[in-house]
């Protein structure tokens, strides 16, 4: 069995064998002995890698899983090796796309910092959202021209709710 595993911009192929009842992984040409035991405590596993002990949480998320280890959740995509082939044949469409600034958490939209038609630079503040008693400035990642304000000021917003739509400069 083989999988194509991606963590951020790094991908690796993992292949499984069994050798005399023991599970052996081929990780990019490296031989690793692993034991993976689901604990009674939900989606939590004890992972032994060549004898080293790790405790990890594995929770499904999107196209893969979030692996929590040492307090951090690492998003890992797990795909079939065939998909790698398919993707390499696909051409990634060029040209800048627009940008949507979403509420990162549930809270109160205190105010917009921009109006429709404004030119916004990358990193510029577009809205203020208050949550957990703190006011947070939301900034545009790439910038562009404000094409739409999608919520009303003083309204409650939910996590991921789109607040500002930007179209690319000159589009």
């Amino acid at each position, binding site marked *: 069995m083989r*999988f194509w*595993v991606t963590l951020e911009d790094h991908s690796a192929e993992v292949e*499984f064998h069994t050798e005399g009842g023991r599970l052996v992984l081929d990780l990019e040409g490296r031989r690793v002995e692993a034991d993976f035991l689901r604990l009674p405590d939900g989606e939590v*596993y004890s992972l032994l890698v060549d004898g080293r002990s790790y405790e990890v*949480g594995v929770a499904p998320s999107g196209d893969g899983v979030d692996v929590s280890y040492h*307090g951090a959740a690492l998003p890992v995509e797990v795909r079939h090796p065939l998909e790698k082939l398919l993707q390499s044949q696909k051409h990634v469409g060029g040209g800048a796309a627009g940008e949507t600034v979403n509420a990162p958490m549930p809270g109160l939209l205190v105010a917009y910092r921009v109006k429709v038609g404004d030119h916004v630079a990358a990193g510029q503040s577009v809205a203020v959202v208050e949550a957990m008693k703190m006011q947070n400035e939301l900034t545009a990642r790439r910038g562009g021209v404000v094409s739409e304000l999608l919520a009303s000021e003083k309204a409650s917003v939910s996590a991921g709710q789109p607040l500002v739509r930007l179209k690319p400069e000159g589009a």
Partner: protein
Amino acid sequence: MKPIRRVLIANRGEIAVRVIRTLRELDLTSIAIFSEPDRAALHVLLADEAYPVGPGPSRDSYLNLDRVIETAVRVKADAIHPGYGFFAENAEFARACAAAGIAFIGPAPETIEALGDKLAARAAARAAGVAMVPGSDGPVSSVREAAAVAEKLGWPVLLKAAAGGGGKGMRVVRAASELEAAWSLTRGEAASAFGDDRVYLERYLERPRHVEAQILADSAGRVAFLGERECSVQRRHQKLLEETPSPAITPATRARFAEAAIRIAKQVGYLNAGTVEFILDERGEFFFLEVNTRLQVEHPVTELVTGLDLVAEQIAIAEGGPLSFGDSPPAPRGAAIEARILAEDPSRNFLPSVGRIERVRFPQGPGVRNDAGVYRGFEIPIYYDSLLAKLVVWGEDRERARRRLLRSLDEFVLEGVKQNIGFHRWLAAHPEFAAGRLSTSFLDEHFQPGLLAPSHEAAEVAVLAAALHARDERLRVNLPAEDGGARSAWKWPMRRKSDRRRR
């Protein structure tokens, strides 16, 4: 004064839990109040009694003065412990308690009023002859006036809400061009958080340390100094990690520091537990900042080195009794560090995170204390602050405490919301932190979100775990193990799994 038997805790989260623990040990009745989303909160579960005070938003429940007082009267509370935040530094609330015949566990309303107003507090320090940071004489009423004061003080300046505290309602302004945006944000925050939009200016000292004095004052006029706490590691003026003793304070400085704190306390006739905050510059000179008229979030570090229970002392003082140690406070022993475990994402500019605690396991073992307000399955409400737990460690000296902190952070499992355990691990392992070279600019100087990227080992563990998990899933749903036809079926083991979670 009538003895205190029944204590209502006008708070929630870890501090309500912490107060309940002392009440239980003192064999007093603990009475919790809760908002609708807090019905299943830990403080409700642990208290002897619990009563609803309204819907989620603070102003409709924990900050609903009439409702809280009415509840306290109805359930025959003898005293109210305000914790920190909410009504802890609200003179009107303290007055309402007195009017209802309930003891407020804290200073007199007049003291809260005098010190809660940062401008009046500066006047008190001036009268006590304690040095303070240069600033505007009173509130400034317009951006134009603020700009003029700032020009006189010299940039950068600190814009502060007169009614602010706990790091809320405060912004550094580095240049005139930033003033207008900072002005409206600070005023907005001040108005919404404190209902008072008066703002003043102070000169902003570069790279200062934040060091504070814990004091206890009883009704016989005794004021005890219980050592200092250094709280320099902050982001957006919010403390992240606190320790005692401060690595920057020499015994000679400590003596002067204690004297200044006690002088200010006596100047205002302070009663109960309080904290006098100072900033310490690079030459070791300290300047008065403000007085917090309440128990601080970081009080446990003082408890670990002194062996005192500050909540128990507070209750004794509120009953009119003396301090447990008479005239001689216990000599502090060893060092203690507290890490604030917050529901926020250090890799995304410390954005707050909400959600359900899916899994939690607190560190244990020698010298480790956890003050937490959450448990597995608890849904973090969006209405309150992001403090989930405080990990507090004790060691014979700072280095041993630091290693114990690292060890405890490694043990800490907290999943379901983004939290800053990894950040604290980075911090505690940093050579500058280990050397005790701290300042409030520590994060600006040393921290980048990229530093929290997973180590090579962690990345490999994640890749292996994900692949092993996928294999388990594949075997479990009994699909053909080889490639033929697997692609079309590939998606659905994952989907099945997420369906299961949703149920």
